């Protein structure tokens, strides 16, 4: 026997009560786990972004176009290591409801600049560059529609049309790529910008945005200033920012997700704090006489305090671990059905770590009052009461 056994036996002496407390803790942690996973998924763009990557968009708004000439002009800016560009295609497959993320990209440079996010093999890179109507498809997207390398697929645009009036472009899959980072999402595809630009009926020689890599993140500010000043007062002014800041600003547009998550998780935790805290105070009060006996046997106040805190910690850890398990299961189940809306939903190590921190805090917070009561308990009075 040791103190842990004592703690365990104390906790489960009223099984129903212990189980009810564990259930309420479990639920709070499950809610925390799932919501935190959602929040991380929403901010995946921020996590995937790299410190030396900048995004250049039209100053009016990122949906406004920029002239293609900026590609070469920005490439010449000092501190820019590599630059590429892309255009939003507004894609769908067969039915406008089947929304597909398609980007028309500068074939040679785009794969290099984003090569840290996605695992492009040399073969698929070559094939994509050589084949004007070729497309590279992300693993998740290919699996969703059952596409294979070599398939010729019609991709439609809800925005653009070809000069012949059709909204659909036929492209051939020359490669299916995986991701390099766990947060990255492969639910997208790339087509060649030159092919797209020559065939579309309007908007020729304009691009959506540019992505560039700087020599090092230390020169970011300098590069940002140079680029934006270069185009100031032109009819196409630019707004340059780090990829991280850009993605963060975009997610912020959905609403204050972090605040909503904080409020809901806060509500859930206040609930268990009250329920578990009060129940533990009551449980320890019921045990007044036993604690007095322990003290009579020579258990010091500090030791009794540790026993009570151990009990609430154990409770929090059991409930919290089960709750995290449930949250992991739930995110796995929702992953597929929500892949369009929140790609990359998963339980990350950071979430688990935060949860463990919360478990410890919860254990200490709910145990504090009863543990102090036990610590202060006077043997003579307690025995008299029993």
């Amino acid at each position, binding site marked *: 026997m040791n103190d842990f056994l004592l703690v365990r036996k104390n906790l489960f002496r009223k099984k129903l009560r212990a189980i009810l407390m564990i259930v309420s803790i479990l*639920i709070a942690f499950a809610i925390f786990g799932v919501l935190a996973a959602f929040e991380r998924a929403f901010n995946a763009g921020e996590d995937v972004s790299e410190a030396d990557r900048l995004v250049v968009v039209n100053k009016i708004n990122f949906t406004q176009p920029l002239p293609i000439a900026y590609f070469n002009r920005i490439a010449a800016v000092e501190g820019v290591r590599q630059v590429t560009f892309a255009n939003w295609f507004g894609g769908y497959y067969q039915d406008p409801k089947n929304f597909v993320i398609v980007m028309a990209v500068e074939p040679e440079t785009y794969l290099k600049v984003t090569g840290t996010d996605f695992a492009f093999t040399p073969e698929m890179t070559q094939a994509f560059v050589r084949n004007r109507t070729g497309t590279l498809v992300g693993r998740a997207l290919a699996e969703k529609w059952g596409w294979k390398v070599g398939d010729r697929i019609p991709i439609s645009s809800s925005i653009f049309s070809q000069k012949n009036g059709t909204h659909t472009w036929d492209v051939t899959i020359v490669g299916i790529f995986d991701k390099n980072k766990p947060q990255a999402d492969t639910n997208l595809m790339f087509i060649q910008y030159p092919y797209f630009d020559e065939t579309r009926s309007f908007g020729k020689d304009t691009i959506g945005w540019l992505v560039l890599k700087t020599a090092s993140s230390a020169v970011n500010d300098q590069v940002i200033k140079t680029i934006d000043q270069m185009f100031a007062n032109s009819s196409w002014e630019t707004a340059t920012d780090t990829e991280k800041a850009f993605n963060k600003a975009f997610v*912020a547009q959905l609403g204050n997700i972090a605040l909503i998550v904080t409020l809901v998780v806060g509500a859930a935790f206040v609930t268990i704090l009250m*329920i578990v805290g009060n129940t533990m105070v009551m449980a320890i009060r019921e045990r007044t006489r036993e604690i007095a006996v322990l003290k009579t046997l020579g258990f010091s106040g500090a030791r009794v305090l540790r026993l009570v805190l151990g009990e609430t910690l154990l409770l929090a850890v059991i409930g919290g671990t089960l709750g995290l398990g449930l949250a992991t299961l739930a995110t796995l189940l929702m992953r597929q059905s929500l892949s369009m809306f929140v790609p990359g939903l998963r339980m990350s190590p950071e979430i688990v770590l935060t949860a463990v921190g919360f478990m410890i805090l919860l254990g200490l917070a709910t145990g504090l009052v009863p543990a102090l009561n036990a610590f202060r308990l006077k043997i003579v009075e307690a025995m008299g009461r029993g």
Partner: protein
Amino acid sequence: MLKQIVAVTAINLKSIPRRFWLSLSTVVAVALVVMVLLSFLAMSAGFRRTLASSGAADVAIVLRAGARAELNSVIARDQVRLLEDAPGVARDAQGKPLASAELYLVVDGIKKTTGTKANLPLRGIGESGAAIRKGIRLTEGRMFAPGSNEVVVGKSLLREFQGFELGRTVKFGTALWTVVGVFEADGSVFESEIWADLPVVQSLFNRPNTFQILRARLSGPDGLAAMKAFNDGDPRLKLDVKSEQDYFSEQSSQTSDLIQKLGWPLAIAMAFGAMAGALNTMYSSVASRSVEIATLRAIGFGGFPAFVGTLVESLLLAGIGGVIGAVATWLIFDGFSASTLGASFTQVVFSFRLTPALIGQGVALALIVGLIGGLLPAIRAARMPIVQGLQG
């Protein structure tokens, strides 16, 4: 029997102060569950209402086939001309068609609450653009003058985003625009928009002769059908024609369903937590009253009053929690203004709306928590062996 029930219930309720903190924790737990549920439902209802009030049944909206959102759509000048003269389009007193070809662009604004960039819709509207829509009313200033760089802004936009006060100058790209008026539009999405003269927008944004959508007032109940038939019959058109009402309700259902789909599971999960708390409280209540219950039973009271008494206590605690939760939600969130990205990739400003029906749902959830949380302990109270109870 009734007398017994009343007596036992009274004893029960009087003993609540003895378990004050535990009882309070149940009340708070239930209140928080109801608050979470109601704030999500109020958000969903508010968003839905904003979009629902945007769409008129007697206004048609024409988009490029497959565009689904105004932002994506592109239609040609010739198509605009053809459609303006289409059957089903209403005409004003001078015989001019009540139709407005529009350009829908996204510009950056700054959200007041967070200081972050936000996509705002800048709409270039035709001459009859304001007249087609119902309920447009200028609350400040005047309408923009045709051919000038003037804009009018919706009052929700003014409230949520920086720098659109009457008389202020705003800069989109290199062009400067003056805010000359503020309008309201029955709480619809149009209140989150900036409006300017179409030709000016076309030229200042390098979009000469480009249009994105056409809106037209319909001549009558069968106007839409006539317009659709005309569109389908002409190979130069082949556009999507739908009523504005349908267009917006499609958009609202996505987002508001999503909010609801988040709100209910969260609230139900939390309700289970609160239920565990309620069960705990009620089992303690029964345990702490075991001597009283046993004594009453020994005197001759039945088990049923003990059952009812416990259940009433549980329902009362949960009910109080539900009411507190509803009142708190109403005080904090009713009318709370928020904005999110809508289907056209721009911010839609909406207000949380807590309707009586929603409050009903919240209180119902609270009572369910109370009912289930009280049932098992109530059965235990009714079945408690008298001798064991008397021993305390």
